[in-house]
């Protein structure tokens, strides 16, 4: 059971990272396209800035999920590095609790926010297939989606840290996750 969960979690995180990487590449291309249209054709495109900003928000929130998984978020590690055993486990739980709280707020109210703006539309961008306007919900959905994935990453990371601090030996962080 634990092994199956762990496999599922790794699969999810690996694909979250891959999608975020793709989004970064895409937003670079879209922004470059904007520079080219502005300078070479002197006719700035209307859709590229909005699209690039939307891609960047999605890239950030998916990247945040992976950062929670790998423990890459910046923190002042002075205290936790000096603690061992039970005290360290307690601190790990405090960090877990506060992080979980923030992520839950982002999931719950992020969904709320995305629903509220459902009928507002993005300026200058249309669905390339139907030609209809796009909802701003697309932008706001990034936060709850990323936060939900981050909760999974946070859980996996905390389990590893707890096992490490109660002395179950050094549990290596999933390096292969970083190796995509």
């Amino acid at each position, binding site marked *: 059971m634990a092994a199956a969960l762990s496999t599922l979690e790794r699969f999810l995180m690996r694909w979250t990272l891959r999608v975020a990487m793709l989004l970064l590449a895409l937003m670079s291309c879209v922004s470059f396209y904007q520079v080219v249209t502005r300078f070479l054709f002197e006719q700035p495109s209307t859709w590229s800035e909005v699209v690039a900003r939307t891609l960047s928000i999605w890239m950030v929130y998916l990247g945040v999920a992976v950062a929670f998984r790998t423990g890459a978020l910046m*923190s002042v590690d002075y205290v936790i590095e000096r603690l061992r055993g039970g005290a360290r486990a307690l601190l790990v739980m405090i960090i877990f609790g506060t992080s979980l709280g923030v992520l839950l707020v982002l999931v719950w109210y992020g969904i709320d926010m995305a629903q509220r703006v459902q009928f507002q539309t993005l300026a200058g961008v249309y669905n390339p297939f139907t030609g209809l306007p796009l909802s701003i919900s697309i932008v706001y959905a*990034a936060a709850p989606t990323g936060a939900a994935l981050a909760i999974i990453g946070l859980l996996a990371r905390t389990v590893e840290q707890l096992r490490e601090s109660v002395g179950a030996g050094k549990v290596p962080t999933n390096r292969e996750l970083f190796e995509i």
Partner: protein
Amino acid sequence: MTSFMLMAMVLLLALSVPVAVAVAVASIGGVALFTQLPLVVVAQKMVTSIDSFPLMAIPFFILAGNLMEAGGISRRLVEFAKSVVGGLQGGLACSCVLTCMIFASVSGSSVATTFAIGAIIIPAMLAHGYPRGFAASLQATSAELGVIIPPSIPMILYGVSAEVSIGELFIAGIGPGILIGVALTLYVYITCRVKGWGREDREGKLGILPAAKHASLALLMPVIIIGGIYQGVFTPTEASVVAVFYALLVGMGIYRTIGIADLGPVLRKSVISSAIIMFIIAAAGLFSFLITQAGVPAIAGQWISSVISADWQFLLAVNVFLFLVGMFIETSAAIIVLAPILAPVAIHFGVDPVHFGLIMIVNLAMGMITPPFGVNLFAACQVGNIGLDRVISHLVPFVLVIVGCLAIITYFPSVSLFFRNLVY
């Protein structure tokens, strides 16, 4: 409310809670306990704070820096710097400063500069008999130039949150960057003379012309970026995109050091670094929205002007305050929270907001090398494979050099404003 939020944030930071989480928890607590605002404002602000075209320059400059590192551009820059100052005693240490100055003019982050240059120059310095602690401190301090010489991520943040032109800030960073670079080089040169380090640094140095030719495409990059912004051709964000594609063109097309397979690790590193910074920006944006709503900038401004009467006192007090803040709080969070409060007060005292931005950035950049929370210092210790406690004694003089430069930058506005006034 403000004192609750500040205390909650500092307490959580002390408990090793990630910076972005600590700032977000403090803000969520502030919203829930002290305001009538619905909590949905949290989700709204944490999206809209990063929904900005100027801020998109951050992931792009990070990506461009990583591409250059992968493309071997940093190695070529080290060779070039060695050819210029390598002939001196202690020339290797001096070329560390010079390389960081050049690299800084294409990279907007000082941590990226530490990793890119440190990985090459720290092992070289150790091989030439420099003490490990000295090499690590030198690298951490020189890399600060990454955020002082344009382009600079903290300047983008200051520009966005204090509503100052980012282009002007970039140009204003040139003077202070050169000042700090020269001061560091002098200090390093004198130390090496006194201690007798680096007598054989001359070895394996290329001639200036071959080295310049070898590094020419890398040296052209700052010309394109700074020149483009300088001439008003590009916005900083556009310049950052151009930097990405220029680095890609040089790395894949001309030097042929980057293959398709190398793009994966570059993108992965860039995604994680960008996400970490932008998440802090999102949380700090919410925090700063709340304190602005509560009218804190006006109250703080009135309070400061009632206690302090002269501009020099204000600048001194601000510098001491920022130095303390910088020791404990991450630079981007500090700028987003404090710039909207302090910049209007600075204007009230007749300080140019661009000049004030430089004071804030140079001061908070020093926070990157002062423990307990100094990202550059962590990075340099990691690269140099040395513990934080063994670096401190070597670090203190470097911090003093920067303090001296900061005093000059603070009380001689023309250091920052000379180039700006030349252009704007």
